[in-house]
């Protein structure tokens, strides 16, 4: 009798947990399905590779794709070297002291700061103080600082996974610390670093608030041709065609969402693939 109620309780408990999980998972699948099925009809050569026409109600989204490409490239060019070196410092050089604890705290805070606050920061530091103006370089640097924690944490994990004897053997051959890192540690951490870079690209491509006041343009007739030009960007484009311009065909908006989500998800899936290959490896 008691056994029965205990078993019943377990069934009900696990059932409830299962339902909660489904309440999270099913909407996610629905959202992806919705974007793919509704957006697919809008995708065409013209949509991807021509300029917008008729107040962005027709034509393509090419300048937004190009703008996002530049922004992502610029942000990774900044965050990858700084982030990897920061991770090397934390894993290979730093001692367990006050400074290290402050660095860890700072990384946690960088990843927790609201995206729109990054926008304000980029506006006041890069646009106004450094006089870069509203430009690709201001936007890239803002996105770069924002994605720094992603690269630092993934790289640090990758460095941590390199077994200690690798370093000891290298040291025992009389190498300096940097030579050891360069030849006995970094090559083995490369897949992990790559994962971080790919994830940060996905993150930078999708962010809207940090680029609102630092780079994003409503509409530009020409493609940007210098880092000091404004640019259109995919997430901002989706925002304005969803809220600012009336009477835009729904499939045009779904199409833009599909291009953005498609890019971001491809980045994330590549990161998962790289990481799982890396994890299977045994030293």
């Amino acid at each position, binding site marked *: 009798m008691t056994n029965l109620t205990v078993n019943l309780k377990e069934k009900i408990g696990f059932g409830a947990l299962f339902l909660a999980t489904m309440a999270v998972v099913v*909407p996610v699948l629905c959202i992806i399905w919705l974007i793919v099925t509704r957006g697919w009809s809008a995708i065409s050569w013209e949509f991807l590779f021509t300029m917008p026409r008729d107040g962005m109600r027709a034509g393509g989204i090419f300048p937004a794709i190009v703008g996002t490409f530049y922004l992502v490239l610029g942000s990774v060019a900044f965050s990858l070297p700084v982030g990897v070196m920061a991770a090397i410092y934390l894993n290979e050089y*730093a001692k367990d002291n006050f400074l290290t604890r402050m*660095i860890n705290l700072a990384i946690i805070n*960088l990843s927790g700061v609201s*995206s729109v606050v990054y926008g304000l920061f980029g506006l006041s*530091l890069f646009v106004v103080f450094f006089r870069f103006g509203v430009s690709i370089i201001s936007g890239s640097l803002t996105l770069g600082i924002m994605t720094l924690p992603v690269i630092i944490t993934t790289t640090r994990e990758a460095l941590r996974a390199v077994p200690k004897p690798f370093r000891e053997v290298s040291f025992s051959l009389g190498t*300096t610390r940097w030579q050891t890192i360069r030849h006995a540690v970094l090559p083995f951490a490369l897949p992990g670093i790559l994962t971080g870079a790919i994830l940060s690209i996905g993150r930078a491509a999708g962010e809207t608030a940090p680029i609102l006041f630092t780079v994003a343009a409503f509409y530009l007739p020409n493609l940007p041709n210098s880092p000091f030009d404004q640019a259109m960007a995919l997430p901002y484009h989706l925002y304005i065609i969803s809220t600012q311009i009336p009477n835009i065909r729904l499939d045009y908006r779904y199409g833009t969402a599909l291009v953005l989500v498609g890019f971001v998800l491809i980045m994330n899936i590549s990161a998962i693939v790289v990481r799982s290959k890396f994890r299977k490896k045994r030293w």
Partner: protein
Amino acid sequence: MLKKIKEFIIERLIFLSGIASIVFVLLIFIFLLKEGISIFKTVGLFDFLSGRFWYPISDPPKLGILPLIMGSLLVTLGAVVIAVPLGIASAFYIAEVASPRVRDALKSCVEVLSAIPSVVLGFIGMVTLVPFVKALFKIPTGLTAFSGSIMLAFMALPTIISISEDAINAVPRQYKEGAIALGATHWQTLYRVIIHGAMPGVIAASMLGIGRVIGETMAVMMITGNAAVIPTTFLQPVRTLTATIAAEMGETVRGSEHYYALFAIGIVLFVISFLINVTADLFLHKDKR
């Protein structure tokens, strides 16, 4: 010799990059203060935080952010009520109940959710959730705090699930084995033993989820209706702190009171996220001390 110099330079660069995170956090705070502090001289900190009216472009402007704080709090409260129980329950299911293959599938699904850009969730919310809420409650607009709460709950879920799951997995195996050896069922072990071990991590996960919700900008701006009045119910439009900055910064004149006030809102947001992250970190590292 040349090699030594090269190495010296590289190690300096590594150190500088190491402390770069500290520098950036300080820079963010300094530059927010630099642009925002002057508003406290003209309006006063207390009046700024407790002023009931946000009319930034009237003459003279009224710059009280209480309606915006209330808007943020209301939306956050709604999102927390939805996301915390769902997130914790899902984390337990993924970590304790699901088979390895199902677990991997569910985790990928959560990862996909965390990867979807907020502007996309905002767009999806606008075309699906907003009309649904409008029809369901028969109200004039579906752009409400309630719609915002639902969408924000989904943005907080990946954070809550993944950190809670880590905390559950970190509970020592012996606890679980001991309970089972004493004759407890899996379910009894789960909610009498494992939940206690995982509690600090679960609390931290919920706090970080809350932090995520308060700082969220695009989706909230697109689906909460943006009315800067003190809300009385969940079914009316509200405007959050983040949405105010995002929506109004483009229209301000650099150096105007309005411009400074938006930076001052940024200071408020920065302080909130700082407090949340530091406290959550204390919970996460509780067991390590």
